[in-house]
């Protein structure tokens, strides 16, 4: 009887917390990986009862069977199938408070490798089933949202390589599993890669002809094809346009409006939701001798993670510098 009351109370609490989470949706976490092809296999079971399963969309199954793409009974995290040794990213700025990496990369058993990160909102995120010696961080280290913190594996109770990502929050003095999808902590749909873009158009899709010692303004637009809102602030979601091939290369065409020698600009708009168009406007200043050039750019998030350049449309600007008769010999 006591136990029934406990279960009922837990269920009511879970529902209430879920509701509160929806109301407090903050879009303050990012998905813990980079690969656009990765999608969710199983999410959090928000129904504490045995053989009752409720997923992030409130769909309910009164059975014990796993429901691929949605949920399995009693699951406390989110499973993302991915190849062994895939990069794992911190879901938010935080501090690494614990890790273990002694189990074999594919060592089956109850226990596995993990990294545990504490965040300023009082929550913790757990990255589990990691590779042996797969932590790329140390306990006490501060990490940024999107930072590569570990390599994936299949240690522990793992029937196929995947990341078990879990968000934990304190409820009534106890660490409890939370569902970031239901709580809208990600803007993304389940499994949708957070940062992805596709080329739409630009101010001049042909060759930019620049008179030497002068500056032209160029803009390019990309569709936000990922799951997260792009922002031009310094917080989670900041999206920049940087030089590419190789990345972070000092550009010979940097203009005075560039934030740095390799960053052409932040996204123009304060907020670009998924599906919307973001514009990047920047100057191109020619100091180079007359001739033909080609400047490649790529988009990156949080100053850390580059987008998939080929999916972006392999964006580059052909440039022809011509003589400026005012300063150059004809």
């Amino acid at each position: 009887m006591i136990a029934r009351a406990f279960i009922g109370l837990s269920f009511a609490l879970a529902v209430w917390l879920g509701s509160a989470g929806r109301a407090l949706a903050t879009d303050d976490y990012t998905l813990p990986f980079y690969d656009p092809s990765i999608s969710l296999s199983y999410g959090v079971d928000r129904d504490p009862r045995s053989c009752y399963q409720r997923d992030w969309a409130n769909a309910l199954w009164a059975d014990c069977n796993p429901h691929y793409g949605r949920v399995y009974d009693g699951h406390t995290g989110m499973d993302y199938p991915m190849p062994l040794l895939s990069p794992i990213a911190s879901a938010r700025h935080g501090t690494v408070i614990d890790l273990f990496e002694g189990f074999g990369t594919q060592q089956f058993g109850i226990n596995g490798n993990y990294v545990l990160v504490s965040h300023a909102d009082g929550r913790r995120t757990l990255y589990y089933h990691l590779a042996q010696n797969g932590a790329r961080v140390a306990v006490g280290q501060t990490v940024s949202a999107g930072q590569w913190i570990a390599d994936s594996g299949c240690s522990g109770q793992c029937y196929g390589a995947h990341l078990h990502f879990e968000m934990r929050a304190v409820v009534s003095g106890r660490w409890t599993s939370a569902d970031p999808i239901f709580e809208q902590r990600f803007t993304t749909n389940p499994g949708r890669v957070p940062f992805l873009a596709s080329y739409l158009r630009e101010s001049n899709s042909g060759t930019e002809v620049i008179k030497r010692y002068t500056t032209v303004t160029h803009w390019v637009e990309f569709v936000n094809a990922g799951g997260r809102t792009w922002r031009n602030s310094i917080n989670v979601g900041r999206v920049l346009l940087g030089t590419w091939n190789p990345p972070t290369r000092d550009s010979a065409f940097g203009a005075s409006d560039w934030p740095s020698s390799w960053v052409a600009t932040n996204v123009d708009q304060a907020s670009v939701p998924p599906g919307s168009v973001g514009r990047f406007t920047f100057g191109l200043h020619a100091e180079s001798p007359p001739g033909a050039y080609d400047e490649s750019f790529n988009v990156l998030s949080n100053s850390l993670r580059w987008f998939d350049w080929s999916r972006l449309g392999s964006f580059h600007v052909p440039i022809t510098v011509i003589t400026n008769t005012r300063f150059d010999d004809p």
Partner: protein
Amino acid sequence: MSVRHRTAHGGRTRLRAAVPVLIVVSLASLSGAQIAHADPPPPAQTMTAAQARGSGSAVNVINHSEQGGRVLELQLPYPRISAVGLPAGEQGRRAAARYLDDASNGAVAIADGIGDPHAGLLVTFPDGSQAHTALAGVAGAAFAADGSWLAAVDGSGRLWRIEATTGAASQLASGPYTGSISFTRAGELLLVEASSIEAPFPSVVVRFNPRSRRSVLVDHEEGFVFSAAELTDASVAVTAHVFGGGVEVRRVTDNSSERLASLDPRAIDASLSDDGSRIAYSAAGSVFLHDVASGSTKRLGPGEMPRVAHDGGSLLVLRNGQTALLAADGRELDQFATATVGWASCEGRCQP
């Protein structure tokens, strides 16, 4: 139900940390016991020795008298899991069945497919007869003192009572528990209870009374407990990853908790002698033996899954899918062609 406060290693009182843990365990254990009827028992079947031979499932159990005690070598009919694609170190762990425990009447419990959710628990008797329980993903099992039944944890962390002769299962508690399971001399079960079976920490050690189905907390430290075992002085040795730090073995009694040893931060598969004076473990593909009294640690060479003899004088080690018997100084004393080799745990009370 009763719970006991203890002093953490190092003498610091950690009541602030202890209180929520105590509450969690009390409720979780209680709920586990009460809702045990929710899960249907797995099917069971028995086979005579002739039927086992005829079906190709007979298990040959060979007794070896070795330095350190009696060693059981299990010769199994075939691997349940394909080893294709598995790294070499994992083939020995997963491709074969696993010896779990033996009883005073000569029965041997085997998990017949690690990592195979369709496998189960096999009990084979000296006369060749068998009882098989389709307990999915057996994580651990231990015989009761009289050998009439076993306590077993399945892949979902549920605790079951298995009748040895029939294989019939009845659920004792829903847990979740990890695979560390053993009986104390008082007839209680020593279990590691976790918050989640896929990510099993924080976790705590509990004593579970199979008759009342009630749990008592053994150690309030919140951590990542790998295993627990009762020592000869009735204290409990707890091997755990310390939050934010390395791996420790603690000795927990009714009144105290003291650190026996700090191991390599990557240490796994720790195994203790009966008195806790020697601790073997593996880390990064090597096997180490730690002497508690001197505090010294010796690397014994490559290998994994060390299992120390009752007296701590020798140990079994898995090497390339086979088993080696090593002396405490690392000398190889014997070799076995299979991975399914273990110390007879009924040592001193086994039937001849």
